[in-house]
């Protein structure tokens, strides 16, 4: 199956769901990039382009939602969550309105545009808002299903989508998406690897690589970062006593942060956080950048191997 960017899955989902459900879609002059254009072409009367004015977009979205019409609001992650943070916090978070902020071009895989457009702190700031659900689908199948799930969910959601085409992990014929529920993909006792978004596929490939070297890893697709599926995280942390988190996000405040917050209190466990190590991005091709920041399949495999070594060393 060809690689597909999750933003494309989003656009397709909106265009399909528009036939069944009443909702509005908003964008801030990036409808071709975020793929909301697919909905706009089909339902122009329910599509609202706000121009390059993300703060107003979120406020307008809240006003529409306050009348009972759910709204999807899209832009690049940098602007959708960063530029409009306070509007999200006050008009969408505090009000707990049905606004789904679906942000594409998240992380460093925006690529050549560089640091001003590579937002690796979006999960951290969105996660800090009380009552905000934060998700990051792994592939086309999961993203497509997630859009319907968040439409049916009553409350604000931040959904992170990618620019870059990524391999399809899940079979659309059999995969059942469940909001708030992490998805264990492989079973192994040496390490539990939690990943979200585009890193799920890379974590799986690292897992396969390690298997040939006799290291067995559980890979868990953690598409919902908030509220965290605590039961699954605790179960795999207890089983492996060795956790690695892989994410295309700052090591501060994302899934790695969320898992550390949980484990430090309920089950102290060594955690290795792989991500963007508290630095700004640089220009480059998407794939090159992931490698550059240590998020290549080999890089992930090395980090897992080291964590297993440390665990065995600690036992002795």
């Amino acid at each position, binding site marked *: 199956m060809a690689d597909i960017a999750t933003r494309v899955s989003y656009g397709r989902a909106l265009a399909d769901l528009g036939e069944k459900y009443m909702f*509005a879609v908003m964008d801030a002059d990036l409808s071709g990039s975020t793929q909301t254009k697919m909905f706009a072409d089909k339902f122009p*009367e*329910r599509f*609202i382009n*706000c*121009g390059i*004015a993300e*703060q*107003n977009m*979120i*406020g*307008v*979205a*809240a*006003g*529409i*939602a*306050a*009348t*009972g*019409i759910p709204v999807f609001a899209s832009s690049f992650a940098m602007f959708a969550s960063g530029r409009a943070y*306070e*509007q999200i916090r*006050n*008009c969408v978070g*505090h*009000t*707990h309105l049905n606004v789904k902020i679906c942000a594409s071009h998240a992380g460093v895989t925006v690529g050549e545009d560089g640091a001003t457009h590579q937002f690796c702190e979006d999960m951290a700031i969105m996660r800090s808002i009380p009552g905000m659900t934060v998700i990051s689908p792994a592939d086309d199948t999961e993203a497509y299903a997630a859009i319907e799930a968040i439409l049916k969910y009553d409350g604000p959601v931040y959904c992170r989508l990618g620019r870059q085409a990524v391999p399809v992990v899940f079979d659309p014929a059999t995969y059942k998406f469940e909001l708030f529920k992490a998805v264990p993909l492989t079973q192994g006792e040496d390490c539990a690897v939690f990943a979200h978004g585009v890193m799920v596929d890379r974590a799986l490939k690292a897992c396969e690589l390690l298997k040939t070297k006799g290291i067995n890893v559980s890979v868990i697709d953690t598409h919902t970062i908030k509220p965290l599926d605590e039961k699954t995280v605790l179960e795999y942390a207890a089983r492996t006593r060795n956790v690695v988190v892989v994410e295309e996000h700052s090591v501060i405040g994302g899934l790695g942060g969320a898992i550390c917050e949980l484990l430090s209190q309920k089950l102290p466990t060594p955690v290795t956080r792989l991500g963007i190590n508290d630095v700004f991005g640089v220009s480059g091709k998407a794939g090159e950048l992931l490698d550059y920041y240590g998020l290549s399949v080999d890089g992930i495999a090395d980090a897992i191997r080291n964590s297993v070594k440390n665990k065995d060393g600690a036992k002795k």
Partner: protein
Amino acid sequence: MEKEKLLHLRKKAAQMRRLIIEGVYNAGSGHPGGSLSCADILAYLYFDKMNVSPDRADDPERDRFVLSKGHASPALYAALALKGYFPVEEIKTLRKLGARLQGHPDMHTTPGVDMSTGSLGQGFSAACGMAKAAKIAGRDYHVYTLLGDGESQEGEVWEAAMFASHYKLDNLTAFLDYNKLQIDGDVRDVMNPVPLDEKFRAFGWEVRTVDGHDLAQIEAAVNSGVAGRPLMIICDTVKGKGVSYMENAVGWHGKAPKQPEYEQAVKELDAALAEFAEVE
């Protein structure tokens, strides 16, 4: 405006001013100046113009009001209490722990509040959203919103202004409470937003300028809307209107009166109310 209606609305505004002072005094904090300046506008909306009622508070066809200058919550609460959304006595719980009357309007705690506001500029966008939603859903309600003059310094106000005219939101009427004072002083000294009328006109709005304490002028302006364009009514007002020592005084933006000041205010406001003893 016929005399009977005018007197009725002036009485409501006088009652509101009395409740504003009662609320802010009991809270020991809050924003009396900008609440007193907009009391007449809110009295007109809640007791004459708007199609709203506590017994159908969730009616999807009701008119909406968004207090974009959310710090004037005492004025909104006074109007809602007098309208019957909650007991008038509750005004004394303003800003207290566990109270429904939060420092800034909260749509989930206070009956009758259509949108939570407080962070400036944002309510204006939300009002635009409500007006746009009516167009999407084919509903007939009208959306009213009130901005402060200092609030117009927020960039989001102009993003929303552009949005409203672009989408031809002729079901949106905005008031701008031009009381000329903000926390740090005269708006024209802090960051001059004048001329506001020309700015909104340039952004595609129908603009009227009225004496914001003259109910007949307010009514005439509200009813002068034009198809296909949002309507902005710039209301020339006096900050602290109705309490002599608060009028046009910069220090009464966000400060509660102490007891002697409270007693003085009550004396003045009760005297104003007494004029309407015979009025419905």
